[in-house]
């Protein structure tokens, strides 16, 4: 399978009068066709910015894509015109946002909102349009009679279903789901995730699932990328990473999940706080919090190292040159 999307050295920053927030720093990532990639990290790690970067929807000003390439189906999205991008958005790549309560326009019926995306990308007569939108509603498990209802008449889970319907309406190649279940009740979360999994297969799309919930990743994803302070620290097959986390940050993340199997008095918490994006540490961004920090970590940014097939980690601990004492 080829790469559907490949991000190379992407850097994005937000510039205001007083400060420059480096939200994404030299990020590398790839998604193959039909694959689900989990994108994990703490709040503020730059996950959403990366997603918006792919869509070329980073609010500007103050946001700005500094450098890098985003190769989608072999073409660099960063070189596309705005008009070309519009044809891709919602059509080939669609995005599902975090909060279904606010991501629907309160003054348009849900039907209109689904129709809108279809109308933008496909040339259909009016009644066809409505039929397609109704079908999408049914696909996500909403009766088509509710076509003319307004978002406020739906519950949170139902709204997220509508958002998903909108995302899938044009049968996209890639869906970016930005914490699609965070705002929902736990029981509803499961339903929605199940639905997304199901539909992903049905529509044969790839998915970039942004979350901070490692459990969700385990259930849904094929691959996972661990993100910290705007860059990917570890990337690999879900099973491999779950069984064999390598980067000290990844290890810390897994240790901070409460588990029923082990009987621990207290959770292991990663010491310190995430860095200020306006004032990132030198070298490895994680070094001030890292228990295994070495001198070199403070000076140089480690390159990704393929430790086993398809399992990359950016850490000097696994750099043979470093290990062997240079």
């Amino acid at each position, binding site marked *: 399978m080829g790469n559907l999307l490949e991000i190379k050295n992407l850097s994005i920053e937000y510039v205001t009068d007083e400060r420059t927030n480096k939200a994404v720093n030299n990020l590398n990532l790839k998604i193959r066709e039909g694959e689900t990639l989990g994108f994990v990290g703490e709040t503020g790690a730059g996950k959403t910015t990366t997603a918006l970067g792919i*869509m070329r929807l980073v609010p500007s000003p103050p946001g700005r894509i500094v450098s890098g390439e985003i190769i989608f189906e072999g073409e660099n999205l960063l070189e596309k015109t705005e008009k070309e991008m519009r044809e891709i*958005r919602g059509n080939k790549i669609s995005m599902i946002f975090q909060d279904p309560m606010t991501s629907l326009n309160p*003054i348009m019926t849900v039907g209109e909102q689904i129709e809108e995306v279809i109308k933008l990308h496909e040339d259909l007569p009016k009644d066809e349009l409505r039929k397609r939108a109704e079908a999408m509603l049914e696909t996500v498990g909403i009766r088509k009679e509710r076509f003319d209802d307004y978002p406020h008449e739906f519950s949170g889970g139902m709204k997220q279903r509508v*958002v998903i319907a909108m995302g899938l309406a044009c049968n996209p190649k890639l869906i970016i789901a930005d914490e699609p279940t965070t705002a929902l009740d736990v029981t509803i979360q499961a339903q929605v995730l199940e639905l997304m999994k199901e539909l992903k297969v049905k529509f044969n799309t790839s998915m970039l699932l942004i979350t901070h919930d490692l459990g969700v990743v385990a259930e849904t994803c094929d691959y996972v990328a661990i993100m910290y302070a705007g860059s990917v620290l570890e990337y690999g097959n879900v099973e491999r990473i779950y069984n064999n986390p390598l980067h000290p940050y990844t290890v810390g993340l897994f240790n901070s999940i409460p588990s029923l199997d082990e009987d621990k008095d207290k959770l292991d918490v990663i010491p310190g706080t995430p860095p200020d994006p306006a004032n990132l540490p030198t070298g490895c961004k994680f070094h001030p919090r890292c228990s295994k920090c070495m001198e070199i970590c403070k000076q140089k940014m480690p390159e990704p190292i393929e430790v086993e097939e398809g399992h990359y980690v950016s850490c000097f601990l696994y750099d043979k040159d470093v290990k062997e004492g240079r």
Partner: protein
Amino acid sequence: MIKYIARRLLMLIPVLLGVTFIVFTMMYITPGDPARLVLGESAPEEAVEALREEMGLNDPFLVQYFNYMKNLIVHRDLGISYVTRQPVMQEIVAAFPSTLKLAGSAVLFAIILGIPIGIISAVKKYSIFDNVTMAFALIGISMPVFWLGLLLILLFSVKLKMLPSSGYASFKHMILPAVSLGAQSVAIIARMTRSSMLEVSGQDYIRTARAKGQKEGTVVLKHAFRNALIPISTSVGLQFGSLLGGAVLTETIFSIPGIGRLMVDSIKMRDFPLVQGSVLVISVAFCIVNLLVDLYYAYIDPRVKTQYK
């Protein structure tokens, strides 16, 4: 919906009763003898006394108020003007349309100019256009209507001789009054539009619309603006009310025979029935405008509509 309107209209009744009482009291304590004013300083005292009796001015306060209200409620009659001896209704019907026309065109002017400026400023936030228009808007809301009116007359009527300085007969006559009355509202509406547009633009559903591949113009107009319209229309409604009140200054400067001037002249002549009538009519108009704004909400905001069902 109809039930809601009916309820709102019913709620108007106590408010308007209050208005009549306040104005009546105020007029009662106003110094000056209407009968003397009507007849002038040269009239003999007996004639004044006779007129006073005829007008019922010798009755105690509550009797006067009761008679007025009885007349108003039972006969739906606003009484007779002390000065012109004409039915108050007739005087108001003559004056009100020009005020309505004036305030209406000022609001229209404010909407036509203020909303696009606000939208463009919000879209091109911190651009030169934004900075310049918002600076003007700040000056605009600080500008006294009467001063602007004078400056406009000086420029357009006196120096350039382009526009007439008085009257209200034609479109041409209405330009200067509407512009000077509406200028402040342009500024207020532009600022309001800008800030609500900015607020709405930060909402997730705007991002959703962009993520759909929607064109920027459509995002701004269809998604952002239609949502921003809700606070904007409140502001327009409020503006209309204050324009009805503020029209008195514009009417004075441009010699427009509107209800504001009618009221001020009537106060000066102690023509109490006419003052009562004008305030009452303006208040009713004001309340109805507010009701219309609320109904318009329901029209543009489905969330509100559900509440009224």
